[in-house]
């Protein structure tokens, strides 16, 4: 389904590394194996005859529903990753994400309090990192996952330098 974006027109978005899909896949696999495993327990107990309730069809339907949901999410992952983008403008950084639920955010450089760069175990294997900007507001959730390590370092330096130049109080 093609949907019109709400972004400001004429922005050249920089995208994440395609390898970030693998990170999301690993997260997806771990999360869903645990969830579906838990929801399969009633089925197991009913099969073993420990539980009289729920009926067999319900015990099957429950994990099946979660499996379907998980598969739907799996299909969405590559699209979601492609939808995340960022653009450095002269005075601010634009961050966008989402297809169904779109969000476009502008963070002025002068408002940045600090920049975090984190690397998780899977990200490290793939040579990726996550850059996060913090302002004085907790609502600023400017997180850029799945950047190549070199690009992450460049972005951090760039943002810090620009933030320094345009530093403003609260």
């Amino acid at each position, binding site marked *: 389904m093609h949907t019109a974006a709400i972004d400001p027109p004429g922005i050249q978005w920089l995208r994440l590394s395609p390898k970030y899909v693998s990170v999301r896949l690993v997260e997806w696999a771990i999360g869903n194996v645990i969830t579906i495993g838990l929801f399969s327990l009633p089925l197991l107990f009913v099969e073993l005859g420990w539980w009289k309730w729920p009926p067999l069809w319900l015990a099957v339907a429950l994990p099946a529903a979660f499996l379907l949901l998980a598969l739907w999410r799996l299909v969405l992952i590559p699209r979601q990753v492609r939808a995340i983008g960022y653009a450095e403008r002269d005075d601010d950084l634009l961050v966008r994400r989402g297809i169904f*639920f779109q969000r476009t955010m502008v963070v*002025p450089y002068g408002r940045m309090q600090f920049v975090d760069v984190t690397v998780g175990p899977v990200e490290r294997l793939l040579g990726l990192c996550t850059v996060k900007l913090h302002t004085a507001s907790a*609502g*600023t959730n400017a997180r850029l996952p799945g950047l190549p390590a070199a690009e992450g370092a460049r972005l951090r330096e760039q943002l810090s330098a620009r933030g320094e130049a345009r530093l403003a109080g609260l």
Partner: protein
Amino acid sequence: MVDGDWHRVHPASPFVRGWVALAAIVYFFGRDTFERTLQGRGTIGDNLNERTLWLLAGGGVFLLLALGSFVLSWYFTRYQLAEGYVRVNTGFLFKQQRQARLDRVQAIDIVQPLLARIFGLAELKFEVADAGHSAVRLSYLRLEQAKQLRATILGRAAGIADGSETVQVPEAPEQVVLYVPPGRLVGSLILSEQSFFIVLSAIASVLVSVLTESRAFILYLIPAILGLGTAYWRSFNTGYNFTAAISPDGIRLRYGLLDTRAQTVPPGRIQALKVTQPPLWRLLGWYRIHVNVAGYGEHHRSEGEHRTMLLPVGRKPEVMVMLSLVLPDPGTADPERVFTAGLTGLDSGAGFVTTPKRAWILSPLGWRRNGFLSTDTALLLRSGRLWRKLVMVPHQRTQSIALHQGPLARLFGVADLVLHTTPGPVAPRLIQAAAGEALGLFDQQAARAREARKLQNLAQDNSEQWLPQRRTAPVPAPTTTHPMQHASTQEEPDHG
């Protein structure tokens, strides 16, 4: 106060803070003896057995230990005001040294809990932009000393006295701009939302007890009533005698019945503001105002709730006075009309841009009210048909801006615009604006915030002192009858 000298807090302060612990020790170990005395059996008792002795000895040791630690903590707590910093050293086993820049002050509170008030002591709280706990808390000082220290800190932070001077900074003169009479406070509590829900739940419980023909239901209500009583009492206790004043070092708020508190919020420290009106208050035309101040944060719920209150209850003229204090330059030619439209208006009166008609189904009641208006200095967001709300964010206070659009909103061609500010009760969000308008505002707002900050930076040379540039700004006249007049007279020095 001589610069660079180290001072200690008042010697009685650990006892005022720790009296509960002392009382508990005395009660625990001395109960036996007290009871004997009361029963007239002699202080020590007929049979001076070992148990009593051990109890008394143990109690004495504990008491001495507690007193000793109190004295030590007092001795090692010292504060200093020097070179634009306030420094506090505490602790004797684990030492802590803390310093905060004076010009980064977001607010200063002087708090007097009941016991401290009896002894004429006060606690001074110094807030910087780190939502959560106070950067510096000095408890307790003599009230006079606390006021003097506040004046000195504010004077230094404002830039009227540099660190080299050792003269006493006089307290800035203030003018009272509004006072909330206790009668109105009680009325506002009676007509508040919680009363509404009490009546609703009372009706429900009566119905249930009639239907089930059991009276046991009433028993469950007792804890609920106690809880509500406490909530009412707390609101009354903190809202009592609410007085707002303006002085060159900012807005001063004083309130409290048993525990009193005096807050000073320097100019330009208010990050966002909201005016709300619960449905029942409409009968009497009352409003209340909450603000976001960086240092207050969302934490310490019970405390923060009242600290962020700029006006517990007030009529429209008083709301206008407070708005003019927070935003001396409203950035529009006719602030009275604009703010009135923001408070009570519908549709596009005074230039508000509302939700387009095509999206009325998304908020059937509120679509004529949800809207925004951008003046030269601030963005106004209004919403709510029953619970009326007007949010104001000065342009140079915007942290970041986000545009949200879900599938349903996309179907109707609308989008939400969220402004991020420091933590607090105000969460500015423009609901269901036409997508084009929202996008336009997103761009304009980013540009406006940028311009406003540049101007601010030029004027202030990157320090956050507020007086050197505004030395000429007059204190607004204390006329509460025509608030907008002095709001507009104040515009001139700011433009000049």
